[in-house]
């Protein structure tokens, strides 16, 4: 059982090893905790999770593995907010929606809806039956009552939500998209990235000390505090992803001081023969892409940020651009950039699961040689690791 748990944790990307497993056994053996499910959960968490960004994941695995073992069955499905909204929209007329909102208790309705769904899914028979029933509005029978929303009938048994089911650490999850909540974490990662790969410099104090101790000249080096990383950022503006792109821009701007040099450029959908620096004057003041390729050395690292969602022609064909006539295809320009700058990545604010459904995203990913990462803490981490990889 516990070994299965370890496997499940590892499969979920929590870096636990047999060491932690043994520690857990030792702790159980020494009666560190009282024999209560909550205490066991807290103990296991303190042993296996060393990063608050992974607690939510841990909670989900814990619920799954110990379902039926510790008390009643657990709920593992996370019900995304947007999906709830969609479901609600499907089952409610616009008038009803308005009415709920005007009652001012939208959040509460969402909560109830979510809870009902979870209860529904936790049950063996029935499953998510009602979701498919399309026509019959669960709010239909008995009329709509804002305090007691009924969806697909009452649940059979009430049960207390377990601590690990509360998902209290959800907003710390590393795989969440970048938002105001985790932007600070992202910034820290970025700083770390900026300091990596710094050259060594002479450590005068240690050299004097070493020399005095040894009696001969003992040169000591240390990593340079200053950073050496130089960045070119290309941001896709003017689309539905603007808020995310802006956030990303803010993120990097906040880290400006950490980098030796950083330049921002904007493009729309795909990179072509020119970009711009000032959005207000995007048609008047353009920077030829060639100039960038010539001006900034090969040691610059390149980051594209955009959803890469467009008509495939906008990448593959000359003249495919939406706003004007481009003599050479976007693909040609992407190849020029990735050829000039070996260290290059693409950050994509859309969810990874969607990438394969968009032809243009697939093409762009190929052009980037697979170096496309989601705009999440984890994605940023992976991208920075790729950029600092020794080549």
């Amino acid at each position, binding site marked *: 059982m516990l070994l299965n748990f370890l496997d499940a944790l590892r499969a979920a990307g929590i870096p636990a090893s047999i060491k932690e497993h043994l520690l857990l056994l030792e702790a159980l053996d020494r009666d*560190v905790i009282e024999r209560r499910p909550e205490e066991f959960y807290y103990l296991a968490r303190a042993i296996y999770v060393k990063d*608050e960004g992974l607690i939510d994941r841990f909670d989900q695995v814990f619920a799954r593995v110990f379902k039926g073992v510790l008390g009643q069955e657990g709920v593992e499905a996370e019900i995304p907010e947007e999906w709830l909204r969609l479901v609600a929209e499907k089952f409610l007329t616009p008038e009803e929606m308005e009415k709920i909102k005007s009652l001012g208790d939208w959040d509460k309705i969402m909560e109830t809806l979510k809870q009902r769904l979870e209860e529904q899914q936790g049950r063996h028979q029935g499953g998510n039956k009602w979701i498919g029933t399309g026509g019959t509005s669960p709010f239909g029978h008995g009329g709509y009552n804002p305090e007691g929303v009924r969806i697909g009938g009452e649940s059979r048994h009430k049960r207390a939500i377990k601590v690990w089911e509360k998902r209290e650490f959800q907003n710390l999850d590393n795989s969440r998209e970048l938002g105001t909540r985790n932007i600070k974490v992202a910034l820290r990662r970025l700083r770390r990235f900026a300091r990596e790969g710094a050259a060594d410099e002479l450590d005068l104090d240690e050299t004097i000390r070493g020399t005095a101790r040894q009696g001969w000249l003992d040169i000591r080096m240390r990593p340079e505090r200053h950073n050496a990383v130089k960045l070119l950022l290309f941001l896709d503006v003017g689309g539905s992803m603007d808020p995310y792109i802006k956030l990303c821009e803010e993120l990097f701007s906040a880290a400006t001081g950490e980098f030796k040099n950083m330049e921002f450029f904007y493009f729309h959908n795909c990179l072509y023969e020119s970009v711009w620096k000032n959005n207000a004057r995007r048609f008047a003041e353009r920077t030829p892409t060639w100039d960038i390729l010539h001006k900034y050395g090969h040691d610059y690292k390149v980051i594209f940020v955009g959803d890469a969602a467009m008509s495939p022609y906008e990448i593959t064909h000359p003249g495919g651009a939406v706003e004007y006539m481009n003599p050479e295809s976007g693909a040609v320009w992407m190849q020029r950039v990735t050829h000039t700058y070996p260290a290059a990545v693409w950050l994509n604010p859309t969810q990874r699961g969607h990438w394969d459904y968009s032809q243009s995203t697939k093409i762009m990913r190929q052009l980037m040689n697979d170096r496309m990462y989601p705009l999440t803490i984890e994605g940023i981490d992976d991208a920075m690791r790729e950029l600092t990889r020794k080549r």
Partner: protein
Amino acid sequence: MRFEGTQDYVATDDLKVAVNAAVLLRRPLLVKGEPGTGKTVLAQEIAKALNAPLIEWNVKSTTKAHQGLYEYDAVARLRDGQLGDPRVHEISNYIRKGKLWEAFSSPKLPVLLIDEIDKADIEFPNDLLQELDRMAFHVYETGETIAAQERPVVVITSNNEKELPDAFLRRCFFHYIKFPDRETMQAIVDVHFPGIQKILVSKAMDIFYDIREVPGLKKKPSTSELLDWLKLLLNEDMPLDVLQNSDPTKAIPPLHGALLKNEQDIMMFERLAFMTRRQQR
């Protein structure tokens, strides 16, 4: 003995489990969380509960791992040698004991606090691995070995500014102090101000949690700021209706300087208050 929190410290259930596990199995306890969430005080409370001396090592950005063991002042010795000082013949005159040395050789089992480990160099925790594992180290200059009779209780705190190395993490119990919810915060306030008016705390907490939600604050006020603020409110004997004031022209909480320390934050907050006032007109 079991750590159950103390008269002056509110410990949540998950924290208790982590502390007890670390104390019983003598593995370091790594505590992370926003500044002001009671990490440092926790170590002091554990020491109190165990009736053990507390040895505090406050880490700074320039702190080096070996300083926790000992420092050999070779430069001073060289100078003394040139000046013909007789002290020069006794090498131990130039050895300064560090906090780990102190902890390992303490006559009574101590609690060792390594506070804000993330401030130091990335290599810092790695450099301490062996010594913390073995609870012993060798003094190269004098040839002696300093070893602990019994493994001290070790508490390490981090404000989360840097990642810690895996090898280091594998050896620790970990606890993340989630920012206290209202209920926990109420309990914390109660231990600091027993008998405080419930309604005052409730009003103050409304304002406090609201301010924490203001987007873009450089430094969100935390537990310690709330406590400072309550203390001021009590000292000033602020009439309750000032906090309750629904008059929007007085939307800024009195003595808010205790909550917001950063000048930029105060300015932004005042601007926000100004805007709400205008909207309400």
